[in-house]
């Protein structure tokens, strides 16, 4: 039987914040917290940097911008040169408005697709859903899970650590796949 990790339950934001500090200090790498609302300072404890979504968005936006400029050049100046309103066949100002609009489109699609990709979504099921208390993560309970893929993970040691830092309902979560 494969294991996904160990999950523990906490009662308050302060409890999970101090628990997270201790898990971090114990040297764990692959762990996560699940709370009903964002907890101030958690991102610092978990050392979460900025999301990479912005770069996906930038790349998609810039790509869309340049491809529309290219498309207009190809259509108006190369493939079928056409004089419109006495303007040059190709001039940067004339491409700007459609290219700019497609840049917004590309940026937005990049943000959405990048977010879904980095979150590994959509998926139909998650092993943590097997935990019967886990639904309370969107109500009034605070959860901390340490993944089995963590190099420091050991069933007994990790369970002991979670007990020491005040976790209750500690459960080994199975990976159903």
């Amino acid at each position, binding site marked *: 039987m494969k294991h996904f990790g160990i999950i523990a339950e906490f009662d*308050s934001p*302060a409890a999970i914040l101090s628990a997270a500090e201790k898990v971090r200090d114990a040297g764990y790498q692959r762990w996560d917290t699940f709370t009903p609302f964002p907890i101030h300072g958690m991102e610092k404890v978990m050392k979460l940097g*900025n999301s990479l979504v912005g770069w996906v968005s930038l790349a998609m936006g810039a790509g869309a911008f340049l491809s529309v400029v290219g498309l207009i050049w190809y259509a108006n100046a190369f493939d079928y040169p056409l004089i419109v*309103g006495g303007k040059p066949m190709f001039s940067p*100002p004339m491409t700007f*408005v459609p290219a700019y609009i497609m840049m917004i489109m590309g940026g937005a699609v990049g943000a959405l697709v990048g977010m879904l990709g980095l979150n590994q979504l959509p998926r139909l099921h998650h092993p943590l859903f097997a935990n019967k208390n886990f639904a309370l993560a969107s109500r009034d309970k605070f959860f901390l899970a340490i993944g089995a893929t963590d190099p420091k993970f050991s069933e007994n040691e990790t369970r002991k650590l979670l007990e020491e830092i005040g976790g209750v309902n500690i459960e080994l979560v199975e990976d159903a796949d």
Partner: protein
Amino acid sequence: MSSHKDTTHLPPKLDLSGWSRLPSVLMVGGGILSVVGALISFKHDGGTAFGFSWLFAFIFYLTIALGSLFLVIVHHLTDAGWSVPIRRFCEHLASLLFPWLAILFLPVILFAPKIFTWLTLPAADELIRARAPVFTLAGFVIVSATFFGVWWLLTSRLRYWSLRQDVTGDALCVQKMRFHSGWGILAFAATITGASVLWVKSLQYQWFSAIYGVYFFSDCTWIALATVYVITVILQRQRILDGVLHDSQFYFLGVWFFAFTVFSAYTEFAQYFVVWNANMPTETFWYLIRERGSWWWVSMILIVGHFFVPFFLLLPVKAKSNFKIVLPVCALAWLMHALDLSFNILPAARPDGYPLKWIPLQLGCLAFMGGFLSWVFLKKFASHPPYPQRDPRVLEAMGIGLEPEEYPDTLPANGGDR
């Protein structure tokens, strides 16, 4: 969360006492340079070079004051909490409009016949005749005085109630400031459009551009944000505002600054694009002049320095609160804004290329006015509390999520898990 603010990460306190004579030095040095320049200008072109340089420097500081006024108005209209600490010196900057900038406007009236060709050209021109009541010296003075009158009313009321709030802490003060911001935003929009058209755009009165007022406004706010950012950094380093400032203030200012970098490029391009697309001689001539000689290079520098460089430097999230990135961008913004105003103002007198010979004269006018206005500003700043003392939102700005009456007795001892 915790209200305790860690100031140990701040570098040592900034001591600017050695610079206290700078405004006077600038005023005297700039004054001498301006007078010498004016005398030379009289001899060569009857004062045109001086008139244009003075107008250029005047508009430069006018934009900072108008942009600051906008920040104060928006603060009240949106009921903002984060901008409480920076509100007071923005009010001081805005109240430079009257009487100080109005005084500095007097030479513009004096030199108006040298600057604005519509004052001296025969009224046979239909474009002048159609605007006859305004396009006369009396009309020019009356309309300009109206602008300053509105700004005087607006800035003095906003500042009066803000200072009153320090004393009474009364809810009436907030209501009054909101009331004056309410009619003020409309009056601001009307006067800033009128001022930009009458004082800058009418230099080439044959030209039409409906977006000019918006373009002028976006640049006003852009340069005011650069100035406000620098002042906020200085006040934090001097430990004057560090108690009420959080990282978020710098981040929000950076976001505004970034947004207006984009917005001013947007308005400028929109103006260019409409002229380019319509392709009418009555409009294109304005840009054709600016593609001649060294003006071409000025416009190229503006595209890169006014938009692309600040845009990409300020784009990352963390850059907006990183002083090492934003402060150089602010310096660049001042330089680019000055160049942008040159681009708008000077070709009317020098269509063949950027007048390099005028630079000492322009620097003289800029230094004189800068010294004078910063002297007035420092006097105002020193004679009042540095931030609104009893604003209902000041605790919010400090990052304390408590009602004022709860503070500080029931501050949770455990750092507050509420």
